[in-house]
């Protein structure tokens, strides 16, 4: 049935697959990023086209609408300035108290804006690639967020591109706490619902916390684990149920950030 050229082709492909699958993780990541960079001009073109489209849309937006938006942003800006003044004052007080009690000063977050280039074409991973790389100071395990909340963390970095693994992916777990009276802690892990990408599971909650956890309570990063700083919003509790093992409680968390519509994200340098 199979002829000599068939055997040669099978041999070549099997050999190549074996070599690729057995590459050391570092070499494999580098090779992946190198192959992925072939597409960078295309991503650039796609980004340019998107910008042109949005510029065209801006150009045809009525002046009245722009003025209304401008007024809204001006008010929001004023509110944020006032809140910033308060936050700065609180930060000063916090620094003074830390100094008095001999504790380390809290480092100020530094943020870098990144554009999302692509999404994972495979349906069984949740990841995106962004246009910042090692030349911008990006390194693995840096948290990534939007103004709404936590998005994920950087996993691999090339010179001008990085891969970000999103919340809900099995490889992105975050130590989190619920902002209730008992500050219950758990791990935010895999996606929570088959057809709703905005839900993730929070696992390993103590069974005794069942009465304290209510829908709508905020979930934030706990700062444990060393990757995500404390206090980044993750989402809100949707519901709770006992875990299959019966030892713990499980909660569904509605994510604050819209992971399916990511266009721009912030990489956080803690």
């Amino acid at each position, binding site marked *: *049935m*199979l002829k000599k*050229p*068939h055997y040669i*082709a*099978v041999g*070549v*492909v*099997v050999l*190549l*697959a074996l*070599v*690729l*699958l057995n*590459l050391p993780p570092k070499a*494999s990541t580098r*090779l*992946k*990023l190198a*192959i*992925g960079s*072939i*597409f960078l001009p*295309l*991503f650039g073109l*796609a980004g340019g086209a998107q910008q042109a489209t949005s510029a065209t849309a801006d150009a045809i937006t009525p002046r009245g609408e722009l003025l209304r938006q401008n007024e809204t942003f001006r008010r929001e800006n004023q509110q944020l300035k006032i809140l910033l003044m308060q936050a700065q004052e609180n930060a000063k007080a916090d620094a003074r108290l830390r100094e008095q009690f001999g504790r380390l000063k809290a480092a100020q977050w530094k943020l870098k804006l990144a554009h999302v*280039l*692509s*999404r*994972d*074409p*495979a*349906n*069984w*991973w*949740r*990841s995106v*690639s962004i246009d910042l790389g090692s030349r911008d100071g990006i390194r693995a395990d840096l948290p990534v967020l939007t103004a709404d909340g936590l998005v994920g963390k950087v*996993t691999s970095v090339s010179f001008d591109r990085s*891969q970000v*693994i999103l919340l*809900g*992916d*099995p*490889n992105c777990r975050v130590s989190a706490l619920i902002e209730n009276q008992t500050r219950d802690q758990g791990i935010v892990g*895999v*996606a929570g*619902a*088959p*057809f709703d*990408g905005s839900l993730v599971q929070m696992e390993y909650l103590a069974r005794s916390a069942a009465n304290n956890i209510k829908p709508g309570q905020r979930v934030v990063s706990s700062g444990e684990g060393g990757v995500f700083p404390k206090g980044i919003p993750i989402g809100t509790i949707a519901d709770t149920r006992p875990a299959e093992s019966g030892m713990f409680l499980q909660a569904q968390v509605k994510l604050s950030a819209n992971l*399916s519509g990511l266009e721009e994200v912030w990489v956080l340098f803690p």
Partner: protein
Amino acid sequence: MGVVSMNILPSILILLVTLLTVFAQAALPGFRPWFGAQVDLLPALMIYTALASNLALVTGVAVIGSLAFDALSANDLGVTLLPLFAVGLIIYSRRDLILREQVFAQFVLGGLASLLVPTGTLLLMLSAGQKPLLGWGTLWQFVVMTLGGAVATPLLFGLFSFLNQFLGYKPVTQSSFRPDREIRRGRN
């Protein structure tokens, strides 16, 4: 030499479409916002290649397509290669028995390939100790991928037929005029 130069254009077209397909799957939302799953067009492309081209190109599409796909994904590099090539090789070795011009045959083969390639990829990943995101939703994603691939295959055949006609050599039309049968008129 002439044959090679005539055949190289469809081959380049297929490889180019392979790369563009992977890029489009990563850069464009596609059916994801509506159906919650992205349709993988590589298996459909492999069906076209296996039915319309040679073994070297089947191997080329498998290697280039899978490497590009894995590079833009969180998959292990090379994990898509074997399933994609296996589907291509099976179809290629049996293509004399397949009614490749029939839309229904293209539809069925596209659907089967779109089911088998992700299944093989997932099995390879699970056997390598990877933990992809699997659950009840995965079944729905497979339905979307299978149907999407099935519908895309006849469309790809149509696209390549158009491209080959548009960019390739026009077939020489046989004229009924024969110069040796021409009746010459005139004075002797």
